[in-house]
């Protein structure tokens, strides 16, 4: 038959006919076959061990995509062939398979999944069951991330993990928060944690990662957990795993949110009248005030007469908005699984020309070639555009005289609103095209792997992670800007190309020796190379504003050109053994050797051992019988970890270019600039960590407690030198610091009753005490560097303002060399002179404690959560109170209660025209930085499956969220500040983009 058909010419009637017959027959046969298997409707109710009705349980006919979910009463209805098998699954319960037989009503009670205590946790170079974990590791899951409008990866950690401080000042789009795990330990080297993305340690940043792609994040905190990352683990490690496909029916998902953001407030400035009065006072103070006519310029007089008071700050703010769209495809079969997503994120800040746009394509693939080999990749390609990274018109607005003439009579902007030649109109900064400040970044990162199951229990894996970034930063300043003030435009471009790869060979061996002994060995060899090429040019005198930075050749002046190459290499070998006895006693021992190019020739290699012991008390007979205790595990770990986070070339003495000329010919020269230090070596931290993991009453109360002490030695210290040596500083290994602290993470399920109402609370609390133990000269304070034994790594050491010199204190003030109305500084050493010996400690940016509480309520499909975070006891410097508090009648000033003969306040000194800032003004800016913030309130609704399916969806969730709706702080209530949250440097920049609150609506759909 086949042969004859083949012989027939293509498209002949006979061929078409025979095909039709074939299809008809086979369809018929199929129909008959299917109908032979009788389809019946099956109904039932699903409950759990702890509650009678479970809504949302997935009920699927095994081996098909035919399925449903239970409704609010736990009931389901499904058409299923007789003799087929149903698979029921629900989070927190064990999966159950039920053979239908001939039944049409099936009631099921699902068993609580004891193994949920035994979820798998990602650790360095492997995974481990939670009950087997010996280190201090905290996890954040995808659900915590995708439920919220989270804009960057760091934000997902915020407040969720004890011991992790995520700090962000202001709201500039695209800026990334600082993450500190258990405080700072190093002066000169980095204090940033190591990020590991899908097993590949990253050298570049994590700003390009799309938070919606993250399946889980594990934060490794103690030596036992981080020592496997050796030289890079000293500041903690964050393991990021992205979502991977699962075999079964493919899903298409769409997640989106849109939000509006608004500045919380703005710093209060003087209005026109208040400014005029402050200016008069500034001239009264010097005895030069006669009358308004001789003091004020014509524009100012006009402003006073007409009651003009331009709110430049308000005029420069807008409502921001934020939006995110992600479309995802995932699925696969037993051999191949995939997860793909495309994400668009846009954050338009509250200041014009400040925005950030991120576009990320992700492809994760896993393929099993055969029983032995598997390969896969996790790749993202990113394109992001950031505007306004170094642009902020607010600093000009904060200074601008409010009496000025903002607009010309014809309605156009008046470039110089007053006669002050230095102050141009802040509004002209945001005229389209006046200033362009743009960074465009392209990055592609791939984590490629291949594994081989060499023998039973023995696997080999190779990871290769190329990471390629091209970044271009452009800046243009037009003629009508404060930077140029009518001079011809200026522009600059900086390019960076970065290529970085990690190549790792990993061998893993797992063996159970008898019933009671489990053994696991991991060996890794790892190579990481980083290469950065930078170049830049800056010019001025661009003939046409439209050219911006697109034709440097036309510029009349080249201000500077540069290029640079930075390379570094890290080579590592490591081994780890996990041994478990009877699931009661667990031991982890690891050793890592790291060689880094950035250190001196004799000191490239560092060795970092660690050990941890865990005792699973709940598996001991005497506790096993206590029904209230599900899990009780005590852990102790001790180990050394290194820090190489310094820039390359610091071991080398380098020259710098110097410019000079002889006559009119240029004479560039080179002179010693940095002192080399060929003995520079690894900084090393030893951590002792004691932890307790527990779970009580079937998980109603669970959590962990940790106490630790980290001693860091051989600090990579940029140590200041007496300048008479010809150098300012040298990087050395000296000194010692200690971090000690306590962390608690507790989750409780407060209410979980049959009505479907559930209330759960997550509580984190942590303290970290930073201390300098030893410096270059032993236990001796280093005042020049601001380092003091027993104090945190940076402190506020300054004059203490006790008030203002009052009229009746004139003589005493005079004796100190002060005048009435000036800042009164405490003579700390009582020697009758105010000099640098009178500086005292006034705190540091390190809080006494931090903590957060998240409350989650759910009822049926409805969920509500709110997250409150507090940081208490830190001291901050508010630069608003110095740089915008100059009180000399020239620039506008923040609205402060200043001293006058008739207003004898102790807050701020008297304005005086003959100062560019009040004397000892740094003492006016030191405040208590404690705060409490409601980080977010989130309300969501998960539509019942029945409704979702009518809409053709697998699931549908709608939510609404408010980010940072409330900040409570003495800095706000007493000193008129906006947001006391700072980076660890404890500085509030006068140029910060105001903190915002954002209200968002979002949607998660699965098809």
């Amino acid at each position, binding site marked *: 038959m086949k042969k004859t058909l083949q012989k027939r010419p293509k498209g002949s009637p006979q061929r078409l006919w025979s095909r039709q017959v074939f299809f008809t027959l086979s369809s018929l046969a199929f129909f008959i076959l299917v109908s032979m298997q009788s389809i019946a409707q099956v109904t039932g109710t699903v409950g759990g061990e702890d509650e009678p009705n479970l809504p949302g349980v997935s009920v699927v006919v095994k081996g098909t995509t035919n399925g449903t979910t239970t409704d609010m009463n736990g009931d389901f209805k499904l058409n299923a062939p007789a003799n087929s098998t149903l698979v029921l699954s629900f989070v927190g319960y064990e999966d159950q398979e039920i053979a239908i037989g001939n039944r049409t009503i099936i009631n099921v009670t699902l068993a609580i999944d004891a193994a949920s205590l035994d979820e798998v946790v990602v650790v360095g170079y492997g995974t481990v069951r939670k009950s087997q974990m010996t280190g201090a590791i905290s996890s954040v899951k995808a659900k915590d991330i995708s439920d919220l409008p989270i804009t960057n990866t760091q934000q997902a950690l915020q407040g969720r993990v004890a011991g992790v401080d995520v700090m962000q000042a202001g709201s500039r789009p695209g800026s990334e928060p600082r993450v500190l795990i258990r405080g700072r330990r190093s002066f000169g080297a980095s204090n940033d944690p190591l990020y590991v993305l899908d097993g590949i340690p990253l050298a570049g940043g994590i700003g390009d990662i799309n938070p919606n792609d993250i399946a889980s994040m594990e934060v490794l905190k103690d030596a036992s957990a981080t020592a496997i990352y050796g030289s890079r683990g000293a500041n903690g490690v964050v393991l990021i795993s992205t979502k991977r496909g699962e075999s079964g029916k493919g899903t298409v998902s769409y997640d989106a949110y849109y939000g509006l953001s608004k500045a919380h407030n703005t710093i209060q400035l003087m209005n026109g009248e208040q400014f005029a009065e402050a200016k008069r006072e500034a001239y009264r103070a010097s005895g030069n005030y006669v009358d308004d006519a001789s003091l004020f310029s014509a524009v100012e007089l006009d402003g006073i007469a007409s009651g003009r008071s331009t709110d430049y700050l308000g005029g420069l703010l807008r409502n921001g908005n934020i939006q995110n769209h992600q479309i995802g495809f995932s699925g696969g079969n037993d051999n191949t699984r995939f997860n793909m997503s495309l994400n668009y994120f846009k954050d338009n800040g509250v200041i014009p020309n400040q925005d950030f746009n991120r576009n990320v394509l992700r492809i994760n693939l896993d393929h099993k070639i055969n029983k032995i080999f598997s390969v896969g990749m996790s790749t993202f390609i990113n394109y992001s555009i950031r505007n306004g990274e170094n642009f902020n018109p607010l600093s000009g607005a904060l200074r601008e005289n409010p009496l000025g003439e903002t607009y010309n009579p014809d309605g156009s902007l008046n470039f110089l609103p007053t006669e002050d030649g230095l102050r141009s109109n802040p509004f002209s900064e945001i005229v389209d095209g006046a200033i362009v400040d743009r960074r465009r970044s392209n990055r592609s990162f791939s984590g490629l792997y291949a594994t081989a199951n060499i023998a039973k229990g023995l696997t080999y894996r190779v990871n290769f992670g190329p990471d390629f970034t091209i970044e271009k930063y452009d800046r243009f300043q037009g003629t009508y800007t404060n930077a140029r003030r009518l001079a011809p435009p200026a522009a600059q471009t900086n390019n960076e190309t970065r290529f970085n790869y990690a190549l790792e060979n990993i061998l893993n061996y797992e063996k159970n020796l008898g019933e009671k002994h489990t053994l696991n060995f991991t060996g890794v060899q790892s190579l990481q190379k980083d290469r950065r090429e930078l170049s830049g040019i800056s010019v001025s005198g661009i003939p046409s504003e439209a050219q911006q930075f697109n034709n440097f050749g036309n510029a009349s002046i080249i201000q500077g050109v540069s290029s640079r190459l930075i390379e570094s290499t890290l080579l590592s070998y490591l081994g780890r053994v996990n041994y478990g006895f009877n699931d009661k006693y667990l031991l982890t021992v690891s050793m890592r050797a790291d060689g880094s190019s950035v250190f001196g020739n004799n000191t490239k290699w560092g060795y970092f051992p660690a050990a941890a012991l865990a005792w699973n008390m709940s598996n001991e007979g005497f506790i096993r019988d206590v029904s209230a205790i599900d899990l009780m595990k005590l852990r102790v770990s001790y180990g050394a970890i290194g820090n190489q986070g310094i820039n390359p070339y610091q071991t080398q003495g380098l020259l710098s270019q110097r410019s000079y000329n002889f006559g009119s010919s240029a*004479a560039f020269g*080179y002179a010693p600039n940095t002192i080399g230090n060929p003995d520079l070596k690894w900084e090393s931290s030893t951590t002792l960590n004691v932890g307790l993991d527990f779970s009580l009453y079937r998980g109603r109360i669970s959590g962990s407690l940790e106490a630790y002490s980290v001693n860091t030695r051989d600090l990579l210290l940029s140590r200041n030198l007496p300048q008479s040596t010809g150098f300012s500083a040298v990087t050395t290994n000296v000194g010692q610091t200690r971090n000690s602290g306590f962390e608690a993470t507790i989750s409780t399920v407060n209410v979980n009753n049959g009505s479907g109402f559930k209330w759960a609370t997550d509580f984190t609390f942590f303290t970290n005490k930073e201390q300098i133990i030893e410096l270059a000269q032993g236990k001796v304070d280093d005042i020049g560097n601001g380092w003091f034994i027993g104090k945190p790594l940076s402190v506020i050491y300054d004059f203490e303002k006790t008030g203002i010199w009052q009229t009746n204190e004139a003589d005493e003030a005079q004796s100190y060399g002060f005048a009435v109305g000036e800042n009164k500084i405490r003579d700390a050493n009582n020697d009758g002179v105010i000099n640098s010996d009178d500086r005292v400690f006034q705190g540091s940016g390190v809080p006494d404690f931090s903590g957060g509480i998240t409350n989650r309520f759910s009822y049926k499909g409805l969920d509500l959560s709110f997250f409150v975070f507090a940081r208490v006891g830190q001291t901050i410097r508010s630069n608003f109170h110095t740089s915008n508090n100059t009180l000399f009648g020239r620039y506008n000033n923040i609205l402060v209660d200043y001293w006058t003969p008739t207003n004898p306040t102790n807050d701020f000194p008297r304005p005086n025209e003959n100062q560019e800032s009040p004397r000892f003004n740094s003492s006016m800016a030191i405040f208590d930085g404690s705060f409490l913030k409601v980080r977010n309130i989130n309300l969501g609704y998960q539509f019942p499956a029945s409704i979702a399916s009518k809409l053709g969806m697998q699931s549908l969730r709608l939510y609404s969220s408010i980010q940072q709706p409330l900040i409570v702080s003495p800095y706000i209530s007493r000193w008129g500040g906006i947001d006391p949250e700072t980076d660890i440097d404890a500085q509030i920049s006068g140029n910060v983009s105001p903190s915002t609150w954002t209200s968002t609506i979002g949607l998660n759909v699965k098809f």
Partner: protein
Amino acid sequence: MKNIFKSILKLGKLAKIAVLSMALMLTGQSCEDILAEQVISDIGNDYINSPVGFEDASKAAYSYLRAYYAQELGMTMMQMGTDTYTQGADGGYKKYNLYNNDLDPRDRWVRDLWREFYRGINTCNAIIERGPKIEGITPAILATRIAEAKALRAHYYFVLVQHFGGLDLRLTESFGPITEISRSTEEAVYTQVLKDYTEALPNLPKSSSEWGRYTQLAAEAMLAKVHITRATRSFGSAADYSAAESFGKNVINNYDRSLLPDFASLWELGNDEHSEAIFSVQFDYDLLSAGGAGNRWHLYYLMEYDTQPGLGRVLAVGRPWKRLRPTDYTYNKAMVNRDVDARYDKSFRKVFYATREGTFPTTLDNSKDNITLAVGDTAIYMPGYEMSKEERAKRPYQVYTPSMYQFKQFGVLAKFLDPLRASINETRGGRDFMVTRLADIHLMVAETLIQQNKNAEALEHINLVRRRAAFSGKEAEMNLTVADVNMELIYDERARELLGEGHRWTDLKRWGKLIERVKLYNELGAPNIEEKHNYRPIPQGQIDLVDGGNANFPQNPGY
């Protein structure tokens, strides 16, 4: 193992093998090769050990001069708080005029001067120490470059010692962290400065084809300056005056230098390399070689003209930072005899021309309510003397007289104005900064002669300078007689001739007259100045960072 091999072969997954073997190959390199750090885009310290690197280091040794001369740092420390100049409206460094408690060891300028000049000294030390060991440099060039480095080292130490007194006398290149440091005596620094200049002198060229390098001429001029300064120190002696006299006379007699015929041509743009120039710090308009520096003194003496009626900021005048304002002494005691002596006329800017047209209400001149101007008209005239209201009223522009001067509007020293800058707000000017010129040497020689009671001979030098300063045809009227010759005359004559050129603070200190004359002539500084102000405070960082702190590196008394 056999199994693995088999399965690989069986499956023929060549790609996988390639990945694996590549991985092994890449990591199979020697560790030492992989971890070696190569400096590519920077220049390592060894570069100086090559002939070309040595040449580059000796160029760089000059560059530190730019950190002090012609910057705000130098302006503040050379001119502020003297009898000729007091503070204007702007600037955060009025403490140098007020001599109040703010002038303390944390001050930025003392720190910066200390840091930058010690970097220069370290570079000189590198040249002096390494030079002889480098192969491939012709001996003549080597000798010249080492001589230049010694002269520069002496120059840096001389400036530092005048401000700070005793120093860290560091004569070897620094390697590694050094903190065992002690403070030498002031005398030891002077001894070293003289030693360096003396050793440099024979190996320096008489003149250099590269304008701005140290020459014998410059070194002899500086030797005169060092000696005349040392003479007034406790360890100085009369022999210093005769030495200064002899070096000064060498400068006058043995070289091709001569006074310019017209005082005004000293300040002509583009005339930096004139016949009166002896040693100048080099600047240029090429912003690439300016490297962030540039002569900034055009900013400091200019009054706020651009807010006045009919005026806006223009490149032809400049950018007014109004830091320095002449004292009454300058107007009324120094710049006298103005119908004969042209130096007031040729030092000050008297007219500002309108850049906007219209009718404007007057500001300082109350002789009329309004002035009406066209672009290019005189908007402000500053005659430098009082003018009656009636006389002023006749003029269609504002007349600012000294009695109207205040912090923002005052007599404008025009010597440094620089309309050739790239743009109106460009702070980097291209004029050379004159460290010393022949008239300075003549007046110094006169000073040494007076100190040696040779007033008649001193008079010749003084009259030579004075005659050049006359209005054309009035030279004879400038001549003084020997009866006029005394130190008071030197004080006034240097004020007239060298007004605002950066000599005054060190001059006053040399004469021991700083406190007396500030109390007399600088109203704002008078209440606070005291004996301790003859020295600047040692930067706190230096004291805090040396082993033993203040005990090993004591602060100057009173700070």
